[in-house]
């Protein structure tokens, strides 16, 4: 596959920023625009950029795991958060919140839905990666 130096370099520069942005969306989502779904889409977009720059191999050398990993881990996290309250005698998916003092950031409200949202984030990332791995190979494309 022919690679463009300009695209290559640009992608390399913006990639960490996009991933950071997606994490921001994930964590800020409860109070600001964002959330796990958008975060997952954004990081998926970052993966897609890698794909545009260097194909499936580039994506796989960046995300060095099978797409099944975020898919499974995400769903496990989400359903885990759904089930834990059940074990504690609450209704399914009951959320809990707690204020934590973090040295630099000050008081942060942590809720259990963040874990759930992380699950959503991972599943969305997994779906994008799975699609790229499944359909992104060049050699079978019939131009």
């Amino acid at each position, binding site marked *: 596959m022919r690679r463009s130096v300009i695209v290559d370099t640009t992608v390399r520069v913006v990639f960490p920023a996009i991933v950071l942005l997606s994490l921001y969306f994930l964590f800020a989502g409860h109070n600001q625009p964002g959330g796990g779904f958008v975060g997952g889409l954004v990081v998926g977009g970052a993966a897609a950029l890698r794909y545009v720059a260097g194909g499936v191999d580039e994506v796989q050398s960046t995300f060095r795991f099978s797409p099944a990993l975020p898919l499974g881990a995400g769903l496990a996290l989400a359903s885990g958060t759904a089930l834990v309250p059940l074990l504690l005698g609450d209704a399914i998916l009951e959320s809990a919140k707690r204020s934590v003092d973090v040295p630099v950031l000050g008081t942060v409200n942590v809720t259990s839905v963040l874990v759930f949202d992380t699950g959503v984030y991972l599943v969305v990332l*997994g779906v994008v990666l799975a*699609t790229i791995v499944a359909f992104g190979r060049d050699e079978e494309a019939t131009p």
Partner: protein
Amino acid sequence: MAWAVAQAPDVVDGATRSVELVWSNGLGLSIELRLDGLALLMVLIVAGIGVLVCLYALRYFSASTPGLGRLAGPLVLFGGAMTGLVLSDQLLTLFVFWELTTVTSYLLIGWTDGSARSRAAALQAILVTGAGGLAMLGGIVLLGEAAGTYRLSAIVADPPSGTTVSVALVLVLIGAFTKSAQTPFSFWLPGAMAAPTPISTFLHSATMVKAGVYLVARLAPAYGDAAVWRPLVLTVGLLTMVIGGVRALRQFDLKLLLAYGTVSQLGFLTVLLGAGYEAASKAGIVVLLAHALFKATLFMVVGIIDHQAHTRDLRALHLGGPGWRGTLAVAAASAASMAGIPLLFGFVGKESAYEAFLHDGDGWAGVVLAATVLGSVCTVAYAARFVWGAFRSETGRWDDAPEPVVDVPPPRMSFLAPTLPLAALTVVLGVLPGLADGLVGAALASLYTGDPSVHLKVWHGFNTALTLSALTLAAGFVLFAARVPVARALGRAPALPTGETGYLWSLRALNRGADRLTGVVQTGSLPIYAAVILATALLVPGIALLGAPWPGWPELTHGPVELAIVTLIVTGAVVVARTGRRFAAALTLGTVGYGMAILFAVYGAPDLALTQFAIETLSVVLFVMVLRFLPERFVRSRAPSTAKAVRLGVSVLVGVVVTAFLIVANGARSEPPISSGFVDRALPEGGGRNVVNVILVDFRALDTLGEITVLLVAAVGALALALGGRRAVRRNQESRP
């Protein structure tokens, strides 16, 4: 087991323990457990034999056998499910446990997954019992709705009646009959013998197959006099008993012999416990206990023989020598109990069965007695056949007999040990049946109100029942002595149509039907699919729209910015429809999406806008990725112009209907929107200021969970399709040169 034993004295005194665990309030489902006499008896059987089977399995399998975990897991799960089944007082809970036993039985029968025969047997078992379970679910719902409660004890105490209930009873009985391998569904049980012997011992002789009998026993006191009940139960039970017994006489495989014997005994139990007379039920409970004791033992003996001699063919076996004496004693005692020889527990059961039908039975007594005697004669004959076949030389008796096995190493004592408690109980209870009075009495009291005192005795004096017993034994031994001509005659007799023929026929018919239906529905034509989908979208809401009042046109525009965006969207849409290149179409579709996103942002929905932007970007990339597999241009349609006109018409109509629907739906609001409540509750309850996110991950988190599950399934499907297809292509390429 220990818990059950600890509870036993109280229950025998007439107390019942009930526990209620609320499962789902909204659906009114709760797990109601109730321990009464009959449940106690069943729990003791399940737990007691379960423990012994586990000990037995320790010797039966060597530690290095592959897949033992796959065996032990379902086995323990089955034990739990079976205990739950007999304890649950709620019909729906009972059904759940019932199906759990079906599923675990499937897994256990198919444990030898390398053998096609055992897979087929497992499939057959789950299809037959599963279909019966489905019928039973229908019956349970009908019965529960008619009674106004799903509580078993309440239904039995105050049984509803009517046509609905009759239908419900027939459905429930079908479920019970499939589970307990009654004619015409009995064929799955001999097939299930493909399972390892410890499994057969536990599931297919002592416990699971008794589930159907158990349910029949529960309902019989209440419905014994219902018009459909007695004819159906007695006919099926008696037929099963006789046919099973006759079939057992033909078997050379010891395990299959026992399997058909079990079928026969289950028929016997159905007759006794299903008749709905107190005396018959008493006999039924005794036979239930006796059967569990001797049949589990006999199965374990077969397992020992199979394990040591590597064959179960009674023509080849002649086990002797000092090492085999213990096994012989255990087997002989159990088989004699099965045959109903005096001073063993089986005799007490058979005697009380004859006694019961000598007194009650209305018009049925004669038929029942005759068939029971006939079935018991067969039982005596196959019991003798079992013992003689395994332990005495049958050389020269059978044509085409396999080579006899010699010098079979005797089993270790620890292998035989689990059978000893059961055999000992068979003997002790046979000599002193009074020991079981309390247990049987409590079980009987849980079925019938009134005086529960039971006095089991060996000796009732010379009476008709004793004469019948003696007659049965004599005839049975005559039948056994004539085993060669009998087997030959049975072999020549035309094969009776079995339920298996029907099973195979319906399986084939289902496959053919599915084939044809798929051929009709899935034509593979994209225009037809699209037309069906659009027509549905057109007709269903369209018809609903016809009666709705028109709320008037909403405010059409909020300003010039909006107009500009809409122009962008509309232009994009038109270009998509007109362009001939796929690539251009995909990109232009992106503008439509971005336009929508801007619109969301303008209206103050940043979350929606963000999501829409991200989705559009990704979908353009994914589109492009997939488009490489397709030709650059759309195929020029060669359809006639009328077809084109129809397509255009359908598209325009869909557009109009959707627009109208949105306007009407917006105007039709009569309640305050649910979202205003969400806005107020977001911060205090959800702990977040972003209402959209709080809705997604808190208020409606279950929906989100469902959605990501769907996403995951879709992704896995895509991966499997693409990678699987790639592998197939590669294989083709490799094999071609």
